[in-house]
């Protein structure tokens, strides 16, 4: 077989995969190895494939993804810490023809914003909630989160989370699945190509269900935080498989009944 030169490989007709145009051309603010960038990409690929850029309004939280609007080429609002589901509620009710999603971390969604999360889910708002769970407050420097595992170390539980003193990690995803207002509750990861594809399919399904007025579609992505966990990206993914997945098992928790 003849040698293929670099020039031939990068010819447009040989292109098999490229970054979606809906991701803005600028460097992400996330640490190398973090899952946020991959979820951003899956999200924007879904919006591009569904051709709903002009119909989509996203909400950025407070946390590592506070600047998500810098990277996603759609109209976005930045919410106060934990309040994204309240914003989404109003947007969707005032503009029911739009796709509305929130993008939130564990501190935002499962600690300070618990009330907004539970009530938006319970009312059955026709929105998508994308929940990135890495068991730590990444942006503020690695403090204990509502989802920090028992024994797991963080800057505010430097000897490991002692559940007798600090309480238990909150499985908010299982909790919202019990509410009548959620139609689709599922948990995924983006640490292998197969999992990335599953996450993308889940995001697409969530967008389709929210548009069909089925209630809240809730997609959790268990993710690593190699900086906060003080590991290399590879180590952190292994640690996530061995420790996070047993506590936060991947897969569908609630699927819509036909």
């Amino acid at each position, binding site marked *: 077989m003849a040698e293929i030169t670099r020039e031939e490989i990068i010819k447009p007709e040989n292109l098999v995969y490229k970054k979606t145009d809906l991701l803005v051309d600028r460097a992400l603010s996330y640490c190398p190895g973090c899952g946020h960038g991959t979820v951003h990409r899956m999200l924007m690929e879904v919006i591009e494939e569904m051709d709903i850029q002009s119909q989509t309004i996203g909400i950025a939280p407070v946390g590592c993804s506070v600047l998500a609007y810098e990277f996603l080429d759609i109209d976005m609002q930045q919410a106060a810490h934990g*309040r994204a589901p309240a914003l989404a509620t109003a947007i969707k009710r005032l503009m029911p023809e739009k796709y509305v999603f929130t993008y939130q971390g564990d501190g935002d969604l499962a600690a300070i914003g618990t009330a907004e999360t539970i009530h938006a889910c319970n009312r059955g708002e026709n929105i998508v909630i994308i929940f990135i769970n890495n068991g730590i407050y990444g942006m503020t420097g690695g403090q204990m989160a509502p989802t920090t595992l028992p024994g797991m170390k963080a800057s505010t539980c430097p000897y490991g989370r002692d559940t007798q003193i600090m309480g238990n990690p909150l499985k908010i995803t299982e909790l919202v699945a019990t509410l009548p207002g959620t139609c689709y509750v599922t948990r995924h990861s983006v640490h292998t190509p197969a999992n990335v594809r599953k996450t993308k399919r889940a995001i697409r399904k969530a967008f389709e269900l929210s548009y069909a007025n089925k209630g809240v579609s809730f997609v959790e992505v268990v993710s690593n935080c190699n900086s906060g966990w003080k590991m290399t990206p590879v180590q952190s993914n292994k640690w996530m498989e061995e420790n996070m997945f047993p506590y936060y098992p991947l897969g569908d928790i609630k699927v819509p009944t036909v």
Partner: protein
Amino acid sequence: MKELRLMKGNEAIAEAAIRAGADGYFGYPITPQSEILEYLMVQKPYETTGMVVLQAESEVAAINMVYGGASCGKKCWTSSSSPGISLKQEGISYMAGAELPALIVNVVRGGPGLGTIQPSQSDYFQATKGGGHGDYRLLVLAPASVQEMADFVPLAFELAFKYRNPAMILTDGVIGQMMEKVELQEFVPRWTQEEINKISPWATTGKTRDRERNIITSLDLDSNKQERHVLSLERKYKAMEDNEVRFEKIQCDDAEYLLVAFGSSARICQKAVDLARAKGIKVGLLRPITLFPFPKIPLYKLAHQVKGMLTVEMNLGQMVEDVRLAVNGKVKVEHFGRYGGIIPNPEEVVNILETKIIGA
């Protein structure tokens, strides 16, 4: 067409919002303003004008729903009373920072804390000096009648959109609960999407190919940019001070003494002016209608005419600080207040005027 009705102040606000073409109301029950949400749920504007009405899980959620709706260029509003308004301060600060137009109604009750459900004016500082964190101002309107409760709703929306800034109607349990004749304005249709795109091109309505994406945020991590943003807010507040001061002067032309009062206290002072004049004391009343921007210049001018001023407020002396700043030592300014839900009566106002100002 215009319509005459006998209504409670709270009901008048709710009806006026429907007629003003409001798009969404988000609230949480609290005395003495629960009639607003109750009235709206009876009227069901979502079936007529299309206005969304939603009882939120908290005041915090309600103000953030207003943030979400306002970010889409919609006319959104919420109402509460003092403890609930404290909870909304985070959201109000974010809206001021993100420059979002909206209406917030505070039907004030006495505080601090849970305080009382009876009327008070003790949220003056909170309303006019910011309230939440950071450098910002609200446009603050203080109605003194049920008619003004209705009239100030479209006015507040107009000013809020003119300046891209939250506006507050600061009223109290007296005006909220009392019934008066009110002339209601004609129904104004809600803005169409085309109108919203024209009026608020910054709104998040879905990015189309013909424009850049719209982002609503109060965050800027670049200190230079954040400073420029705060300075642009300052220019806006200055423009409000230049253009939007509203006040009413009652019997001020020949006044030797001046009462200064807003809202329900101004109603009481109107009677006090009559009582004092019957005794031969030449008293006038200046009623600030906008509490921010404050009528500094009219007060400064009157300071050159009168021998003394008395502010009458249902608080420990809040607006009196702004009056003293306005007159800048030119004339004596004293304060008279009642607290905890007690409403001053006109006789005691005249009595205090005689002892604290005239006889002093």
